[in-house]
């Protein structure tokens, strides 16, 4: 097995051996369930859109909470030394940890399929936006996780890791809201950087390569920074 997968297996086990996974999954499903069912009962509307709509905001709090420990904890307790003196490449450590957090997020998202089933049993489910929405959630979640892994690799303090990850995600989130206030010439750039704008496109059921590329680039850049930060111990 590739060392990255061995590491991610260990991290997944660490998540599920501790309360972290259960708390995150429970809080996540309760919050999304509340938002979904209020809509359903108050407005008598079986629709996935409000559920997807709140996700960029919700991820901002939930994902830094699951990523903050990934590297920072190992730096703090010294286990990183034993891990990276084994025959593993630095990027394998980072990618392994990224995949573990992505797995946890997918577990939480899997449980929310109950909402899709509810909608389907009450009326016709609009398949395109639903599938697009979930694909978008995984892509956007991946970007948030990569930001979190990067923040975690920069410090040995988990609280700092949380706050940095939150701040970066929030900044990317704000870009989407700021488009009206910036000069017209840089508007396209600002709106392109917006982390939830691309998700809105995908969750309409249109999977455009521009949006996919945006998330994949955020993931690549953040994981690269995280790997570099791990390597920085070797700078002369």
């Amino acid at each position, binding site marked *: 097995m590739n060392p990255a997968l061995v590491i991610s297996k260990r991290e997944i086990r*660490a998540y599920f051996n501790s309360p972290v996974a259960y708390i995150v999954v429970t809080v996540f499903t309760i919050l999304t369930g509340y938002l979904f069912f209020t809509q359903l009962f108050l407005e008598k509307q079986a629709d996935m859109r409000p559920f997807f709509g709140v996700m960029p905001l919700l991820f901002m709090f939930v994902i830094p909470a699951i990523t903050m420990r990934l590297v920072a904890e190992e730096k703090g307790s010294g286990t990183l030394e034993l891990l990276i003196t084994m025959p593993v*490449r630095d990027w394998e450590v980072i990618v392994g940890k990224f995949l573990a957090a992505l797995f946890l997020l997918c577990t939480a998202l899997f449980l929310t399929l109950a909402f899709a089933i509810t909608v389907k049993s009450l009326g016709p489910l609009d398949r395109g936006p639903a599938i697009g929405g979930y694909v978008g959630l995984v892509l956007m979640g991946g970007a948030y996780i990569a930001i979190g892994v990067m923040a975690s690799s920069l410090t040995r303090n988990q609280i700092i890791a949380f706050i940095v990850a939150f701040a970066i995600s929030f900044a990317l989130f704000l870009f989407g809201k700021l488009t009206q206030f910036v000069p017209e010439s840089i508007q396209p750039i600002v709106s392109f950087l917006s982390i939830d704008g691309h998700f809105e496109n995908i969750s309409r059921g249109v999977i455009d390569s521009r949006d996919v590329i945006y998330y994949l680039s955020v993931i690549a850049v953040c994981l690269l920074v995280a790997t570099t930060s791990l390597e920085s111990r070797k700078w002369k």
Partner: protein
Amino acid sequence: MSDVMIQVENLTKDYGPARAVDKVTFNVRKGEVLGFLGPNGAGKSTTMKMLTCFLAPTAGTARVAGHDVFDESLEVRRRIGYLPEDTPIYRDMTVLEYLEFAAELRGMDAQKSRGRIKEIGGRCGLSDVAGKLVSELSKGYRQRLGLAQAMLHDPDILILDEPTSGLDPNQIVEIRELIKEIGKERTIILSTHILSEVQATCSRILIINGGKLVADGTPESLTSREKRGRYRVVLQAAGAAFRSPEAAQEAIRTSLSRLAGVSACQTVNGEDGAHTFGIDASTPDDLRPLLFKAAVDNKWSLLELVRESVSLEAVFRNLTTGDEPKSESKAESTSPEARS
């Protein structure tokens, strides 16, 4: 050349403006157990971290099993087993889970690793705690687990940072035996504060102080290299010549201190007219003939004359507390603590 497993040349590491390791050069051959000694903060752990590819040297090179620690770090890491200081092991895993994780990470075949884990677990005395969480283990067991993971893949080179810290005396003996046994065919570098441990397990000693290598040799060569010898003489003087035993003792002491090559002479005790003196020599020459002649000339009866062997403790203290004549390193060696 082929049996040189570790080759270190002018290895230097700076932490910001502070120099932790300063141009250290040494070789380690196959089958050697090398003891790494030095006060806290002398640069032992830093050197080990560079050999295990955790840190990169600021200058100089280190080759482990023929591979450069910087350019071919993956190759190096495949061939070593490393026990870091304080044994940092995931606390949320059980002993067995951790060993399985380490085996998988090293790409060991699942079938083979199961047998190997059982074997190494038995050798390190871990069989009883296989299902326990690492966070529940005592320091001694955690240390054994650290050793077990370092030896799991049967590496050619073992680098152990304070392998016996936190163990009880019985465990220390067991681990030393284990190290000795493995050291026959493999290469081991271990660091320690316990000097008797070095004498018991190591075939060679490096003493490092203030980042500089100050001694390199076998335990025997280091202790015999120590120049200022120490002697113990027991003499009896004819009672008639002196008014009292005390006077006799004082007279003998005075004449002994006047001998050439004697830097100090203390009275240890004097019972039944037999006076015991401790003599510090100021030269490396053997003083025994001189002392014997003095006894004959003065008509003292020589009951005992022993040249005491210098302990490794004395060598260590001499080399690391700054009465070393090397004046350039003096400032650093007088305050080794400042570095930690």
